[in-house]
Structure formats: C-alpha cells, structure tokens
C-alpha cells in the first residue's frame, strides 16, 4: 500500500521487433499524489507515450508494480481494467476522438453508458459539465459542426463525466492554434485547481509551464523530476 494516488515501482516495458528486444521503459519509479498537476515531458522515442498508456491502464508493463489509488493493477483482467478506466481515469487526446455520429451531449454521455449510474443522472451531469466548459449552447451539435477548440472542450467534458481520480491529457493542444491552446490549458489548469490530479503529456516546454511539477523522460528513464 502507498499513500500516493499513483505509485510506480520499477516499471519496464519491452517489445520484440523481430529477434531484437526493444526496451522502451527501463525502470520507472514514480509517485504522484492526489491533486498534483504533473507534466510528462520528453522527446519522441523517450517512452512517454508508452508510460502514458501504462498510467492510463491501456497497456500493461512488462515488469514492475503499479498501484492506482491503492489497488495493484498488475493482476487485473481486461474487464476489470475497463471498469477501472471507466471510474478512475479521464482521457483527453490530441485528436479529440469524438464519435462522428453522436452529438456533443451524446459524446459526453458515452463513458456513463458503460458505468452503473442511471441514465437520467448521467444526462444531467453531462449537461452541467458541458455548461462548465462553456458549450451549453452547442450540446446538440455534431463534431463536424464544432471548431477544434470546441471539440477538445467536449472531449474534456467527456473525460470528467465519471468524476475520475486522474485526468490524463495526451498532447491536448497538439492540433490547436496558440490562442485556442491557451484557452484549453487555462481550462485544464482550472480543473486542477478544483482538486483533480492532472497528468499532462507533451513535448512542448511552454505548455508544460502550467504544471507544478515536471517529469522529464529520456531513453526510457526519468532524468529530471
């Protein structure tokens, strides 16, 4: 057990490419406490994407232990990992990943559908969160009718629906112009100020400036914390 929200111990990840094993992560030890705003920095190939996937329970480490909110996730099967992602982790992606055949509101509701709450509750909360991110008047729009910034706001609202312990943002401003990027980063900072743990994955030092803590990865190892 550990008091940290996220506790990584000796995490490694290796792939096989042909006969050559490639070690992407070479032993990561990392603790993140509840309420922190952490930026995960590093050049491409540094292993930060892989680390983010492991943190987000989308991928499993080769060796090492990962405690999320006190739970050892190493032994969990796919279905339990799905359930845990559903409750504990909110994802924001570089390319938004809104489902094109659903409206903004329906996209925000989506993670609720796989959980256990009543539809009416989910719907009410989805509307509230969309109001909070400033899209109260765009709920019935499809992603094709929204600007990039608006789409990312919908994605952030979606990530917050199930009140997750961690917001994992993977290059959230990578597809946006600088003005919109600032707005989105302001929104994410605000979410952190409300007490939510935020992990921001980026290669852009300026974007990472919002975070209180910066973790730099290089060649599969933490080089500065």
């Amino acid at each position, binding site marked *: 057990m550990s008091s940290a929200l996220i506790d990584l111990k000796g995490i490694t990840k290796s792939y096989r490419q042909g006969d050559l094993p490639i070690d992407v992560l070479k032993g990561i030890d990392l603790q993140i406490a509840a309420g922190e705003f952490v930026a995960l920095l590093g050049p491409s190939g540094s292993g930060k994407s892989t680390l983010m996937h492991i943190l987000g329970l989308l991928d499993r480490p080769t060796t090492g232990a990962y405690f999320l909110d006190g739970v050892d996730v190493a032994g969990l099967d796919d279905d339990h990992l799905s359930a845990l992602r559903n409750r504990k982790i909110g994802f924001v992606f570089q390319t938004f990943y809104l489902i094109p055949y659903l409206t903004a509101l329906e996209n925000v509701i989506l*993670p609720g*559908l*796989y959980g256990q709450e009543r539809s009416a509750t989910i719907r009410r909360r989805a509307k509230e969160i969309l109001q909070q991110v400033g899209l109260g008047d765009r709920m019935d729009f499809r992603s094709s009718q929204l600007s990039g910034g608006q789409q990312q706001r919908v994605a952030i609202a979606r990530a917050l629906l199930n009140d997750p312990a961690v917001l994992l943002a993977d290059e959230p401003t990578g597809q946006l112009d600088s003005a919109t990027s600032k707005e989105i980063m302001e929104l994410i900072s605000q979410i952190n100020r409300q007490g939510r743990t935020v992990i921001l994955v980026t290669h852009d030092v300026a974007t990472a400036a919002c975070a209180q803590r910066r973790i730099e990865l290089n060649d599969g190892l933490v080089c500065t914390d």
Partner: protein
Amino acid sequence: MTVWFALIEKLRLTFRVTLMAFLALRSYRLRSAFVIAAIALGIASLTIIIASIDGAERKADEIIEMFGPDAAFVLGGDISSRAVGWRGLTLTYNDVQRIRAELPGAYLSVPMRSKSNITLRYGEQSVEVPVLVGSTEGYADAWNWPLAEGRDFSAEDVDGGAKVVLLANGPKEALFGERSALGATVYVNDLPARVIGELRYRGMASMGGSIDDRLIMPITTLTQRFNMDRKYVRALRVKFSDPENMPFHRENLRSLLRNMHRLEEGENDDFTVLTADEILKFITMFKGGLVAFLGVTAAVAILVGGFVLANLFYLSVTERRVEIGLKKALGAKNQAILLQFLVEAVVLTLIGALFGMLLGMGMGQLLARLGILEILFSWKIFFLSLTASGAIGVIFGLKPAREAAALVPVEALKGV
C-alpha cells in the same frame, strides 16, 4: 440480490448499446442499405418459395378433394410397365357391369371413353372443344361434379343411345354466355344433340387445358355415332359407400379385374387403380423434390446475403477502429463492443427481412396473377423469415464483432 443486480445491469447495457447501434446505422446509411438489400433479396426468395410450396400443398388438397376420398379411378394398361408396351384398351364395358353387380361396397361404376378435338356448333357460332367424353348415368356424381342446371343422363338415354349432351362450363360460356343452354340443340361435329344439363364451373387445370373445356354424351351415342368399337372403355370410375375401407376396396377391385381379365399368378396387372392415397403419394414425392430444390435455392440466396453482411462489417470494423479503441479507453468491456456490432448486424438483417417479405409477397402476387405460380401466404413465412435473418445476422456478424471486441485499445487508437 447480486445476481439480479448483474442481470439488470446487463439489460441496461444492452438497451444503451442498442440505442447507440441505431445511431451508428443511421449515420452509415449507404452501408446499411446494402446489407438490408442483400438480406431482403434472400428473404424475398425464401418468402416466394415457402408461399409456392404452401400453394402447391393447397393445390394438392384441392386435387384430392376433387378426386374424392371415396373413389377409385381405373385406367386401362399398367402405368408401371408403360414403357415396355402400353396396352391402353384393356377395360371392357362388361367389366363395368360386373363391378356394378358384384363388387361389395361399390355403389357407382361409370365408364369413360373420349374423343378429342370436337367442333361444337350452336346457331352461327362454333367452338373447338378439346375433349368429348362418353359416359353413363351417374357421371356428375362419380366426379363429385354438381350440375348447375338440368339433369344427368338417365339409364334410358344410355340404353337408347340418345342424342343428348352435358356441357361443362367452358363450351357453355363460349356459346351461350349468361343464357341458359338447357333444351338447345347443338351440333357435335354435325351430330345434332339436345343439351340436358350444365356442369358447374370447376376451375381446375388438368393436362392440356382446363377441365371445364369438355362436353359429355352417353357412351353408347359416342361409340355408335363416331364409329368407335363398342367393347372397350378407356377408364372407369368406381365410388364406394365407406371411404374408411379404401385399401380393402382397392384390393377387392383389383382381384375382381384380374379375375375377369384371366390374369395368371405372377402376371402383371393390365390396368392401373388410382385412389386418393396413390395420388397423395405421388404428390408427396413430387413435393419432396420441389422442397429440396427450392430449399437449396433459398439457402444460397440467404447465404449470399450473409456474406455481403460479413464483408461490409469487416470493412466497418476496420474503418471504425478508432471508435472501438476510444470506447474501450472510456471503459467499454469487450462484451459491450461485441454486443454493439452484433446488434447492428441483427437490426439490419431484421429490417432486411421485413423488406424481403414485402418484396416476396409483391412478386408472389404478381406470379400468381400471371398464373405462373400457386401461392399461399401464412404466418409461417413471417416467423421463418425473422428466424432465418436473425440467425444470419448473428452467424455472419459474430466473426467481425469478435474481431472488433478483441482489438487492443492502444493499437486501435493509433488508427489504421
């Protein structure tokens, strides 16, 4: 409690996933339309096939009904050795009389001879009639063929070779229309004859035309006036008072005929006895072939629909990788993904089934109107179509749906 809770949760997930499946199908309209069309064609052929098999069955029932469960029909010559040597004229007028007098349980025995292609004239009008039948009193009864007007032949008509005829509906309509033909004098190939009765419309197709295209005169008149030999008859019809004992009557009739024809033990019959049972056997055999042939056709048509479905769904899974990966990242379990694709497949096949049934019924009606096919629609079609299409949806949708469910989220989110 927890079991109930789990069940409710499953149902709720199913409901939510179903709604989402509908939204997806609406947005992938063209692809959905293709699947629906492919399934609809298969189900349409299934509909027509079932309807025509049922129609054939109804037709068979009509034939049996018309033939009569209490009757036997005897043809000269042995049908089974027809290829070797067809001896058509083996039944004699004497056989008819002996059956009348001696066969227990038989209350009617009517002989038949026929002459084909007769010109029937009335006043200025004339009509070609394919069949002129020579028979005796009891003709209408023997064929369960009620008279619309007038009377059947009497024994005196037959004994005296009276120049009288019964008209079936075909020639009657052609020459008299709505008017009554009773008492009129018509010319049968120049032989003047008085119409004494009209047979009711029967509306059955028989070999070489409608059964209503015929006229009937006493067998004596036919043989005398048209120079035919007076000893033999082509066929005869026997009716029995208790249809429950038909197998017994049939054997009795057979041994009486064998005896009269002096056939030795081991010699083949020189006649053929047909009863409703035999006809039923023949029809059943024929229907078996029909069902097998059409069944294969329908199965192929539906399988083709299934392959179209499977192909388009593979395409769909590839195209919607990101959607699948995202849903998994958001907490969808493998089952939820599997369920969505299965629901999409089954919804499409069921819609296809509904369109297919409509299409099949339309085409079936058309074929029936054109007289090509006898059809009968029943609820059986509805249930069979829905079952078949639902099964196709599950069977052919399962593989692509499994593939979707098995996608690793990290891989899927990278896109293609």
